[in-house]
């Protein structure tokens, strides 16, 4: 069966549309009585439009895209994990350390040699940190490197 990607997307969106529309019907009537346009009117219209669109997708899907498999898919997941961990560690570790790690890891995984990848990470981190904290007086967390 072709167009599997679009069919799955359509199914997912249909579920979303129904859930979104259903939630909208649960809101209590606003204080002061119901009017023609309540908080639920617009979302209800949107839910109907989205449902129609998703059904169309399932009935008439486009040809499938080439999805990454195996190693490439893994690389993508790794990149996403790096980004999430970067956000997680930004404050505890401080900007310079976490940025060196994140930019270094990403460059390395995109094909740069390890050394130059982490050097790029470190230098860009220091430049941006100095520029932001001293040049533009925006505070980036110093974290472990904080000197009081």
């Amino acid at each position, binding site marked *: 069966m072709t167009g599997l990607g679009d069919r799955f*997307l359509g199914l997912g969106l249909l579920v979303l549309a129904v859930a979104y529309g259903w939630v909208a019907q649960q809101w209590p009537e606003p204080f002061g009585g119901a009017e*023609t346009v309540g908080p639920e009117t617009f979302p209800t219209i949107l839910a109907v439009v989205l449902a129609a669109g998703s059904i169309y997708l399932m009935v008439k899907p*486009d040809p499938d895209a080439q999805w990454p498999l195996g190693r*490439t898919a893994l690389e993508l997941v790794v990149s*996403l994990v790096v*980004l999430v961990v970067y956000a*997680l560690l930004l404050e505890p570790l401080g900007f310079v350390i976490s940025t060196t790690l994140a930019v270094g890891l990403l460059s390395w995984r995109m*094909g740069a040699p390890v050394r130059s990848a982490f050097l*790029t990470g470190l230098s860009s981190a220091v430049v941006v940190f100095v520029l932001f904290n001293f040049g533009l007086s*925006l505070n980036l967390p110093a974290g472990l490197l904080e000197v009081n």
Partner: protein
Amino acid sequence: METLGFLIEGFAVALTPYNLMFALFGAFAGTLIGCLPGLGPANGVAILIPLAFALGLPPETAMILLTSVYAGAMYGGRISSILLNIPGDEPAMMTCLDGYPMAQKGRAADALAISAIASFSGGLIGTIGLIMLAPVLAKFALSFGPAEYFALFLLAFATLGGITGKNPMKTVIAATLGIMISTVGIDISTGTQRYTFGVLELYEGIDFILAIVGLFAISELLFFVESRIGGGRKKMNVGKLTLTFKEILTTIPTQLRGGVLGFISGVLPGAGASLGSFISYTLEKQVLGKKGHFGEGDIRGVVAPEAGNNGASSGALVPMLTLGVPGSGTTAVLLAMLISLNITPGPLMFTQNADIVWGVIAALLIGNVLLLLLNIPLVGFFVRLLSVPPMYLLPIVTMVAFVGIYSISNSTFDLYFMVAFGAVGYFLRKLEVPVVPIILGLLLGPEMEKNLGHALVLSDGDWSVLWASTLAKSFWLVAGLSLVLPYVVGPMLRRRMNAAMKESPVSD
């Protein structure tokens, strides 16, 4: 004459040293963004928004910065078209046709110089058109009621895919998703909590800046990771400038035609810069048919599309500034900046925020001159940037995006949201669902709901008010046509654009 007075006031705003500095920086950064691999104009402007916001720039300065970046990116896109036969962004596609053959004949320097000149005149013509047309359109738009606005927003979504768009239904879906995201938070008119699920951070809604940066920048990183084209390109030699003054003079008619056509297609909904450069190129080919040698490195084949796409980029600002309805990805991002500066775009902006509007317009004129001055001597520097490997560049760009988002609120909560938007953006782009309508939906959603509400209150709940007036009717009609036409005309136009690409003997 009134316009001229405003324009002079605009120059007074744009020529202050502070704003001039930002215009220069923007023009420079924009060209950089345009020629760096993997960074389009929408991308570049998106990353700079949080920074402009976090720096607390005054509104006119922030807008001047971003419009200069926008104009600069259009200049920069041509460099890789000419030298590498790889368009830096979509509108620069047509420049490959004659630019690359010129470069192969050893006239790369000439091609770069003449395209800078053509970009300048295209931009200039476009800006003059903007100055003449915008106030008129703004005055006309004052007569719009809520029902007209509601229909106009629908029109904006329907035309966003453009007549060359592939699957209009996916545009509709994307726009709906965007509007749905915009309904999260406390409803302005009734105070009802919508889709907050009790999460405090969601009460104020989802910040569209997060969505923009995530959908553009983070998903771009993922695409590069997937395609593994991390390595740089080989260094290019530009050669010596042999362009004569006479040669420049002979291209003037081409520049004028290209600029005007580009401007018109920029203003029209659904056409945009890509079509602008395509039309200018094809027309030029027809006008000069036998006298030219198009596809083999004709200098006018470089001039026409460049004048066209720069004219179109100024033209695209007309609907954005006067109606608050952007027609392209980059202008949508500019609109996001305006909204986050608490400026309501639309006709009232011309009276209430005249200094900003005219400052921006004057900055466009100044920016064009700056760009011309920057581009001819610095072209060697920009050319060297082409060989910066994306494997270093994209992680750094991602980091800058993180920094920008983080400095707006100083909280990491927003960062997770941005990464999530990036992942969603990757999947949607993979499935050929365009992300620009999502952003436009996020931006226009609240306005759309407000206008719907007003229209229905005025009509006492009669829904037919939405298509009662002639103007509203014609908006609905054009919107409907724009959704149907791609099925009819789209395949044909796309085939012709592809055919034009293949005709050139050197394209690979």
